Structure formats: structure tokens, C-alpha cells
């Protein structure tokens, strides 16, 4: 694959890093195409596809009719015809009309055909809460996808990851769901499109080393985890922070290595704790680090309720106080 890049190392907000990733992928491979609602002339409601319609035209940046099953389902057909469709779901809460296609088709086509068909497609979903939105615009459905074998899930939390995960998701021969940290879209970071990162996208990254406990987070919760570690440091507590990055497959070794050192794990995510991905990680870590754990794995997440009205979401979402409270609890053990 030729690496036609849109530019050299630069500073971009996450949203624009994804734009750059899409653009470079489209320049490098003319079978890469985009589909979704309002992604063409408007450039998407978050402007992530801004400028791509002008550059690549209506055949490669497709404003679709308003049907998510149709969007994902036609992408399956396009992928089987040799294209690499990148689909945008406008908001996390609107992925459910496509759930049948994702669960019974996207996830299973490779398996169903005994490996004869590969399905390289990407489903981009702006994901998570905290933006003051009305109902259905703040969901965190990652656990539903993580329980569905056949899917890969990436959750970039920095501009550099946003750029490269976009590229790598598109390059993957497997279908990838990319969860974009909606409330962090405008956070800037360095992006180096010239140097492919050494770390695989399917691996977690230790963002900050520490000794007293490990904080594990992904997507929109990563900045919170870092902030919490900063605050804890002021109190003399040393927290290791891991950005999970790949939610499927889970990179457990990076997490268990850390927990074996710190003896404590706090997992932070926005989805309801009940049945959330944190439970899976907690169960696995407890299995693998049974004798290293000084305290039970503790989860900080959304409550076991639907996402509440926006003016209460500050209390629903994990925040600095709740994370530190959980850290206190594991340290008191």
C-alpha cells in the first residue's frame, strides 16, 4: 500500500486527526470509501468528513438515505465486492437499527464462509456522553459489541491514535468498530502521519507509570484517568494509567503486568457498570492476578439506568471525585 500522506507531523484535534486518517487512507487506496448520513456536503455533524466530499466526490463519499441497516448492510455488499467501506453512524444511540446487520452479518460473514470471504469495513461511531445532548446521543454500547465475536473494536483517545487507528482499522482485513470519543473531539495532540507507530493498535498503552494502583480507561475516560492520576500524585499516591485502546481483542497482558506490580485496579468507563466491559476485565484480571490483588478490582462507571437527562449527566458520568473515591477505597483494603 502506498503511503500518500496529507502532511507531516502536526498538531490536530482528534476529529481532524480522523479526517486526516480518512483522507490519507483514501488517497492510498481508491477502494476506500465513506458512507453515512450527512457525511458529504455537510462533512458530518461533527465535521469529521469535512472536505472529503470535495476531494473524492460523491461516489467515494456517499450521503446515504436515512437507514442504518441499509448503510451497514450495503457496506457488507461493497466489502464483498472488494471495497473498503468506512461507515459513519451519526450518534451511538442510532447504531441499534443496524444491530442485526452488525451482529448477524458483519461479525459472522468471515466465519460463515469458512474464511473464504473477508470483510474489511469500518464502522465509526461517535461515542459517549458529556456533551449536554438529548436522549440517545450519549450512549456507550461497547460491551454489546465486545460480546459479539467477529468484531474488533478500537477506541482512540489521542490525536495520534485517532489518526493511526483510522488508518489501521481501514487496513484491517476484519471488520472494525471505531468508537470516537465524542466529547474529546476537539482536544488537540501531536500527529505524526509519517511514522507508523511501533505499538500495535490492538495493544493497550501504559500512559503513566505508577506503583500504588492501576487505573484502566478507554476513549473519553482516558483524559479523566490521567487527570485523576495527577490529582492523586498531589496526595502522594502513585497511579499507573493504562489506555486500553483495543476493546476487542482485549490486551490483557498489559493490564495484568501492571496489576501484578501495583496490586490494585480501578476501571473507569462511561457505560453502565452492570454488564459493562469493566466486568469482563475485572473477572479476567481476578483470575490471572488472584494472588497479586490487594483489593478487589473496582469499577467506576455509569449507573444501571438509562442515560439520564443532560442536566444530571455530571452526576452519572465518572468524574475526578468518583475516581479518587474508588482509588481511596482500593487503597484502604
Amino acid at each position, binding site marked *: 500500500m502506498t503511503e500518500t500522506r496529507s502532511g507531516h507531523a502536526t498538531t490536530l484535534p482528534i476529529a481532524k486527526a480522523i479526517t486526516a486518517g480518512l483522507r490519507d487512507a483514501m488517497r492510498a487506496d481508491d477502494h476506500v470509501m465513506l458512507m453515512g448520513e450527512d457525511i458529504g*456536503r455537510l462533512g458530518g455533524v461533527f465535521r469529521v468528513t469535512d472536505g472529503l466530499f470535495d476531494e473524492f466526490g460523491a461516489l467515494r463519499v456517499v*450521503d446515504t438515505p*436515512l437507514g442504518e441497516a441499509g448503510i451497514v448492510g450495503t457496506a457488507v455488499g461493497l466489502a464483498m465486492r472488494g471495497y473498503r467501506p468506512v461507515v459513519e453512524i451519526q450518534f451511538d444511540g442510532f447504531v441499534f*437499527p443496524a444491530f442485526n446487520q452488525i451482529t448477524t452479518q458483519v461479525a459472522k460473514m468471515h466465519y460463515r464462509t469458512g474464511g473464504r470471504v473477508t470483510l474489511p469495513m469500518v464502522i465509526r461511531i461517535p461515542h459517549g456522553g458529556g456533551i*449536554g445532548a438529548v436522549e440517545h446521543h450519549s450512549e456507550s454500547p461497547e460491551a454489546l459489541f465486545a460480546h459479539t465475536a467477529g468484531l474488533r473494536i478500537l477506541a482512540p483517545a489521542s490525536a495520534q491514535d485517532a489518526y493511526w487507528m483510522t488508518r489501521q482499522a481501514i487496513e484491517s482485513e476484519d471488520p472494525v468498530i471505531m468508537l470516537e470519543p465524542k466529547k474529546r473531539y476537539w482536544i488537540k495532540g501531536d500527529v505524526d502521519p509519517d511514522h507508523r507507530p511501533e505499538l500495535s493498535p490492538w495493544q493497550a498503552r501504559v500512559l503513566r507509570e505508577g506503583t500504588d494502583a492501576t487505573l484502566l480507561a478507554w476513549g473519553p475516560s482516558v483524559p479523566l484517568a490521567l487527570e485523576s492520576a495527577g490529582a492523586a500524585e498531589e496526595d502522594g499516591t502513585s497511579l499507573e494509567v493504562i489506555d486500553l485502546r483495543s476493546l476487542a481483542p482485549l490486551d490483557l497482558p498489559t493490564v495484568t503486568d501492571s496489576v501484578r506490580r501495583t496490586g490494585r485496579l480501578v476501571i473507569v468507563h462511561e457505560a453502565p457498570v452492570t454488564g459493562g466491559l469493566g466486568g469482563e476485565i475485572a473477572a479476567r484480571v481476578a483470575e490471572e492476578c488472584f494472588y497479586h490483588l490487594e483489593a478487589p478490582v473496582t469499577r467506576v462507571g455509569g449507573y444501571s439506568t438509562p442515560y*439520564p437527562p*443532560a442536566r444530571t449527566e455530571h452526576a*452519572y458520568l465518572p468524574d475526578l*471525585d468518583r475516581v479518587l473515591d474508588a482509588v481511596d477505597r482500593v487503597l484502604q483494603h
Partner: protein
Amino acid sequence: MSVFQTTIPAVADQEPMIQLLAPDGTRTPHDEFDAVLDGSAGGGGDDDLQTPERLRGYYRDMVMIRAADLEATSLQRQGQLGLWASALGQEAAQIGAGHASRAHDYLVPTYREHGVAWARGIEPWRLLEMFRGISHGGWDPAELRTHPYMIVLGSQAPHAVGYAMGLQRDGLVGTGDRDTDTAVLALFGDGASSEGEVAESFTFAASFQAPTVFYTQNNQWAISVPTAVQSRVPLAQRSRGWGIPSVRVDGNDVLAVMGAVRSALDAARAGEGPRFIEAVTYRMAAHTTSDDASRYRPGAEEQEWAEKDPILRLRRHLEQLGEIGEDYVKRCDEEGHDLAMQLHHHIHGMEDPDPVMIFDHVYAEPHPVVDAEREQYLEYAAQFEDEETAR
């Protein structure tokens, strides 16, 4: 023969659009709708929907709801609302549909149905709760016989059909008694018409002949996507492949809308099965306060539609009838202004809810997990209050 036809003309743009009021206010008679509007249809004795007084009422309603709508946009700019979805330009399509329904009908809206809500007697601030972010829905659907505002496009359509199936089972369809027979009006946009759930709703409604009137305000846009992407032929034709008779009306013409909606609802309540209406109108504002329409649509188009303004049209009609004066117009404007002010004060006076409400009404019956989380939350929140107090 009814204007509700199952014949799709071979050439798409041959689909007629019924108009009773021209943009300059001139009234064209209409074979079928005139009798519906004056109450003489179906054996007669029904309300006359086009008395001068009523017409002035529709005018006032449209002015009021537009004032409320503009105020909501400005409240959003002031940070009082998280978002606002303006219905500007769709007043005739909404006030007409709302008043054409009977009080005992059940209405199933989208999230942009402010005129419908107004006609149903739902106070505007109730709508704003959702856009402010203090609740997900501001009224009791059973009491106001109006479903909650719905965000997931098309999802409400099968609810409408199910409700209508319930009416059938309750014996409230086809009895011949106008005050008993009941129907459901299911609203959705041109964009939402593409959702599979809308199609399944057509299937169920047709199969069970459930008294459902599907009503699309084709406001030309689904955010940035023009209606042509959803359908190459007039949307009115969509339902005919299910054998659901349909009609296309000028949605900026309150009388055409009322004629169509009233007559469709009456057919449905009489047990004649579902109907479908396309009301051709225009979303004058951006999609929502978060949207920038200049990125995708030409100003010329907005200009063109400004000339078809539904409020202006009805006023011109009333003027031609000699049934409206400067003073009435002025009074309406003032009342609109007052409403906007009320809304302003009401919203500015709203307190944020106690977040403990997060845990309320997840379930109707006790639920140990939610209850435990509520307890935890309260204990946790108390810590901070203690800290506050300690200072």
C-alpha cells in the same frame, strides 16, 4: 373516486399536490375536502372547520407557535437549552394536523412537532424540558393523548400502529359514532421515511387495517440530505405498494392539510384502514441550533420558500375574505410576544433537577440494583454536602 388513490402515475412528477390556498391567499374549491372542512361530509353535522373565527384561530396559533419557536432558539443561544429544533415554516402542516385530529385521537409525534403540540394544548415549556435537558419527556401521553417526542427516527411508527390495534380491540373503530371512533396520527419526516421500522409499520397497519394515519412533513431536508435521496418519486407514493391510499398536499396550506388529515383520520376511524399523507413544506431554519444550513443549501431556495410562508398565506386569505384587521394581526403579534416572554421567564426560572432523579423510574417495580445504587449515590453525595457544611 377519492383523492386517496392507489394509482401511481407512471411519471413521478405527475403526482398532484392538493392546494386549497394559493400563496397569495386565493381559495380554490375542492371537490372532496370542502365537505370535510365545512362538516357536511360523512352524513353532516360535524364541526365547520373553516368559519372565519376558526380561520383566525389558526392564524393566531401559527403566530403564537412561531413566536415560541423563535424564543426557544434565542433561549438556546443564551445557554438555557442544550438544543432546539425549530419548526419554522411548518406551522400550517402542524397546526392543521393538530386541529384536524379529534380530541380523542392519539397523536404520535417526532421531535419537531411544536405546532401539533400547541394545537393539542401542550404548553410550550413542556416541550422545552427535553431540549433543556431536565427530562426526557414532559407530559403524560395518556392524559394528553399525545406520545412523547421521539428521537430515534421512525421508532415511533410501530407504536402508533400498536396503539391503533389496541383501539380496534377496544371496539373504538367503525362503530359509526364520531365521538367514539378513534384513530392514530403517526408523524415522521421525509428522512425518517427511509427507516425500515416505518416500512414495517406500513405492513402491520395494512395487514390489520389498523386505524393509523401516517403523516409525513416533507420539509425537503433531512439535516443536509435532500428528500430526493430518500425517494426519487414523490413520497406520497411510498405507501401504495402496501395498498395504503395516499395523497400529497401543500403543507403550507392549512386548509389542504386539515382536509387531508381530517378525512384520512375519519376513514381510519370508520374502519377503512390506514392512510398516508405527504405534506409538502419547508424547514425554514437550520436542522437544529447545532446545524449550519448554509453549508449545504442555497440561500435562493430559502428565499423561494419564504414566499410560500404558511402564516402569510392564511393572513392573505383572511384579508381576501375581509375577516382580519390590522388590530387582530397586532394583537396576535403581541400575544406571541407575551408568550415568548412567559417562556423566557419560565425557563430562566427553572431549577436544575436533583441528580438523584437519575435513579427514578428506571423500573415501575422495586429493583435492588438500582435501589442500591441510589443509596450509594446519596451517601456519596452526602459526603460533599458534609464537606460544604464543614466549611
